[in-house]
């Protein structure tokens, strides 16, 4: 696609166009977030609201019996600052 049409020239433009939209964020430490993006900066520090966090939890005690050992824990937070050094990727809302 022609960059002048989409208005995307550099990676951060993609995030800029996601402001005030629901985004998916993958973090270090086996965590993922979805929430509405309100602010970011050059370090990829983010401020998001209405956040749902998904944490992957492994229960080593169940490894022996070979069942599904990866559980997910979810929790919600109203307003959240996310430090940029933990961010792996930010994905804009799917345009369907």
């Amino acid at each position, binding site marked *: 696609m022609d960059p002048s049409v989409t208005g995307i020239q550099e990676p951060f433009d993609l995030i800029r166009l996601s402001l005030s939209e629901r985004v998916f964020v993958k973090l*270090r*430490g*086996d965590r993922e977030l979805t929430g509405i993006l309100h602010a970011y900066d050059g370090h990829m520090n983010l401020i998001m609201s209405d956040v749902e966090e998904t944490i*992957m939890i*492994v229960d*080593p005690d169940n*490894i022996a019996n070979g069942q599904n*050992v*990866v559980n997910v824990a979810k929790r919600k937070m109203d307003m959240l600052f996310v430090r940029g050094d*933990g961010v792996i990727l930010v994905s804009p809302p799917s345009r369907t």
Partner: protein
Amino acid sequence: MLVILRDGRKLHGVLRSYDQFANLVLEDTVERIYHGNAFAESWHGLFLIRGENVVLLGEIDLDKEEEVPLKQVEYNLLAAFHKQDAESKKEREEIKSQILYEQKGFCKEGGEGDGY
């Protein structure tokens, strides 16, 4: 002052100096280890701590310290338990990252990750 380091150590000492990077000079330092409802101390002395290793600096409230329901024991008694705790934690972390790596495509962070 209580200082928590990135490797999980807890140091108690008198804060003598600090700077913009949180480099610290700590005097009369003791390291505290915990296990269950007991703790133990080992004496170290004068420390200069590089800022990047500092997680948190806590001001010890003397009134609150008296309420803490922990009993102090000999360092030698607790050291073995503490070492065991640390090792089992490390082992669990390794198993966990291995499973997530295999099943979900998460990357392994290795020993120098954020698991301090």
